[in-house]
């Protein structure tokens, strides 16, 4: 039997202003029908380039060498007409970011029907197209009536299902899924992975899945190839690769997504700088006064029809000095609204936010004083820094607003050093686009530290960062707590992250905190059903209770 897809010595070179960049070199991979292959790697490792080269979807500046045999036919040598026929009918793609890959002004049914109509040898009757769309929607567990919906009327998971239905439309033999679950939360992610696994088994499809998260790939794919700097550095069965990784980079990728319940990863993010020892318990309890607190906080939105949405429905939460609290929950659970309200960026409908016992004023000098104490670390460091401001200006922004006494340059350098950007002098004149993602996040954190705050509110601080950098940033947060007693409220959908650095966990569901407790209590002995379902949806599962020793 011939392989469904065979890449022989594949190389891709991009022409850029600064000469040629080898994005992919010497990749040999093959895939039989019904086989599943995961490609793992960080951004820039060439994993998406490999996937897109299969359908020749690369930009014009790319030059492909080697052979791409799809069903025994070389894709690189195909004529335009043949390529058009192969695209979607032979192999199809589930694109990254379902929210952007769907046309916002057309109904999803029409969009699913598009490839069906294009690839039909003769015009199909309308009823046949409709029936096929309905069948496809059923395959991806969506009610056929949703065909009439517009993309914005669907949730993230539903949109991803529509993308999968589109990919299945012409009964391709190969599906390429490019980060299909990146923007989704754990429960929806588990559903999508389950769906993909089932479709592959039922229809004997070949599946290539791309992700930066090894546990996601291990849950769906039989084999995994790990890419690093354009080359496949390790390739093997999922189980073997997860339990006994041979290459350093595989180990780093695996460590970045720790297993909840694994004592080895508790308070031990994958960082290259050693952490200071945990301060003695007694000393911690002594300074454990409540800093930031919410009392019966409520935020109500009105939707377009005037309906009431309780984004935050009566939340009591405390963040004490010298502790990291993780706020976990699915997207849409009200986490970010709660954080914005705690930061006084949004007015609560009722309830109060207090800082060190005193209520936070709504405006004026009191609010400005509060803003010095509680700092925001936004989700995406790339957009959280003004692209025109140098690192120096970005870090000095807070001290300038508050007219901090002392030498500005010293404050900035000290903050950068505290955020582990060393030597600080080398970074002062740089612009954000000259920095890597992890360095940008450090600059944002330095900007917050420059004001010597009491609490950091970090909204998904590592969600947009690469695996190897995640550990470093988490290590930094933990180190700041241990060295400076800096408290943090970390908002995340990633329970593994909570396991790695948090002291306490608050689980948010539909605007309410359904469970608040220490990490060990909440994640290992969950009482609420919702917490249990979150934990059950983790692709890596939870390590057995017996191993835990505290």
């Amino acid at each position, binding site marked *: 039997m011939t392989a469904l897809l065979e890449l022989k010595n594949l190389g891709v070179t991009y022409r850029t202003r600064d000469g040629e960049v080898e994005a992919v070199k010497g990749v040999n991979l093959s895939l039989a029908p019904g086989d599943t292959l995961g490609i793992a790697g960080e951004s820039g490792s060439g994993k998406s380039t490999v996937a897109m080269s299969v359908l020749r979807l690369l930009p014009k500046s790319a030059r492909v060498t080697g052979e791409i045999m799809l069903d025994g036919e070389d894709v690189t040598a195909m004529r335009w007409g043949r390529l058009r026929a192969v695209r979607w009918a032979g192999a199809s793609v589930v694109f990254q970011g379902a929210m952007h890959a769907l046309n916002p002004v057309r109904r999803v049914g029409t969009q699913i029907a598009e490839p069906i109509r294009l690839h039909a040898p003769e015009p199909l009757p309308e009823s046949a197209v409709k029936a096929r769309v309905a069948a496809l929607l059923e395959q991806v567990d969506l009610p056929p009536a949703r065909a009439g919906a517009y993309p914005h009327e669907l949730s993230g998971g539903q949109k991803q299902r529509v993308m999968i239905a589109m990919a299945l439309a012409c009964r391709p033999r190969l599906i390429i899924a490019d980060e299909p679950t990146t923007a989704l939360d754990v429960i929806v992610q588990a559903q999508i992975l389950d769906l993909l696994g089932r479709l592959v088994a039922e229809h004997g499809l070949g599946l290539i899945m791309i992700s930066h998260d090894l546990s996601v790939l291990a849950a769906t794919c039989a084999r995994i190839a790990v890419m690093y700097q354009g080359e496949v550095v390790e390739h093997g069965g999922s189980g073997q690769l997860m339990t006994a990784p041979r290459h350093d980079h595989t180990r780093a990728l695996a460590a970045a997504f720790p297993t909840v319940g694994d004592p080895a990863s508790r308070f031990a993010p994958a960082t290259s700088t050693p952490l200071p020892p945990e301060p003695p318990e007694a000393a911690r309890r002594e300074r454990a006064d409540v800093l930031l607190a919410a009392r019966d906080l409520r935020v109500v939105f009105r939707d377009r029809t005037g309906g009431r949405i309780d984004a935050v429905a009566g939340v009591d939460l405390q963040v004490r000095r010298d502790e990291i609290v993780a706020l976990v929950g699915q997207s849409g659970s009200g986490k970010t609204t709660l954080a914005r309200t705690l*930061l006084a*960026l949004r007015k609560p409908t009722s309830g109060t936010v207090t800082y060190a016992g005193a209520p936070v004023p709504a405006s004026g000098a009191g609010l400005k004083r509060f803003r010095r104490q509680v700092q925001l670390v*936004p989700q995406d460091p790339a*957009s959280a*820094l*003004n692209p025109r401001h140098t690192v120096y*200006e970005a870090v000095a*922004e*807070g001290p300038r*607003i508050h007219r901090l006494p002392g030498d500005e340059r010293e404050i900035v350098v000290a903050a950068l050093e505290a955020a582990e950007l060393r030597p600080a002098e080398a970074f002062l004149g740089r612009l954000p686009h000259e920095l890597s993602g992890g360095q940008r996040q450090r600059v944002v954190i330095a900007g917050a530290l420059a004001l010597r705050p009491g609490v950091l509110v970090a909204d998904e601080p590592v969600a947009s960062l690469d695996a190897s950098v995640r550990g470093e940033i988490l290590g930094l947060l933990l180190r700041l707590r241990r060295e400076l007693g800096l408290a943090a409220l970390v908002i995340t959908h990633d329970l593994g992250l909570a396991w790695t650095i948090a002291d306490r966990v608050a689980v948010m569901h539909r605007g309410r905190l359904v469970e608040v407790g220490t990490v060990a209590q909440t994640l290992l002995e969950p009482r609420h059903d919702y917490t249990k379902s979150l934990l059950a949806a983790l692709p890596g599962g939870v390590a057995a209770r017996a191993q835990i020793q505290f």
Partner: protein
Amino acid sequence: MSAITRQRRRAALAGIWREFTADRGGLAGLAVLVVVVVLALLAPVITDAAELDVIHAPGLPLRPPSGRFPLGTDVDGRSVLLLTLWGARISLLVGVSATVLSVVIGTIAGIAAAHFGGWVSGILLRFTDFFLVLPSLVLAIALSSVLPQGVATIILAIGVTSWPTTARLVRAQTLTIESRPYIERAKALGGGHLHIVGKHVLPGVLPLVLANTTLVVGNSIIAEATLSFLGLGDPSVVSWGSMLQRALTSGAVTGGAWWYLVPPGAAIVVIVLCFTLVGRALETVLDPRLRGTR
């Protein structure tokens, strides 16, 4: 610290200049503009202003181009070349001043509407819409007939009527900038309105405003010519619009005196074209998305 900033700004400016010079059209436009501006500024030095006086006109009326008068003479016997040169002074002065006025009003209104939102935005936008739907030429005519005749009136009339498009543009750009997370970060750091507008929004919209300005100058020059042609300008100064008007009313047009018409007309076309070329080139440099595939 300021040394680093200054060094970076200089490097950024050098980069912009390099990109700008890569655009041949923009460079040609800039070259012509520089020549015209220098000639206009030097007009009192290189020519004799007395020859503009109708009473001391050196030539015979409506003579075709000759050695003494390379572009012929007008109805009063003055050199058309000299008039065109002096006309450039007024056209450029009015064009640039009116643009500055219009861009300043437009930028303030646009940023305020986008930044404050709510009722401030509502009032400002309705006000903008009012000026947008009003035929600006009619408004300018009305204004310049009510106010005393003169260059200042023309500047005011053009400036006050041409700002709404700038305001709309600036508002849209401000809205996109204000939705960026770094604005939220600045708010969380404790920054007030002045800080956010001054440090983040204004530097963000300025490049766009600058590119827009060069395009508005072209329009203002045309508006000035139109108003002067309609006889609403200052009769005591020469401008391209008033030259065309004189040509029409004195019968030079029907008399076949093409040399009286072509120079001011061509001058308007060339100057507006130059400003447009420079403006487009600047736009492309400052917004790389417009560059397309080369």
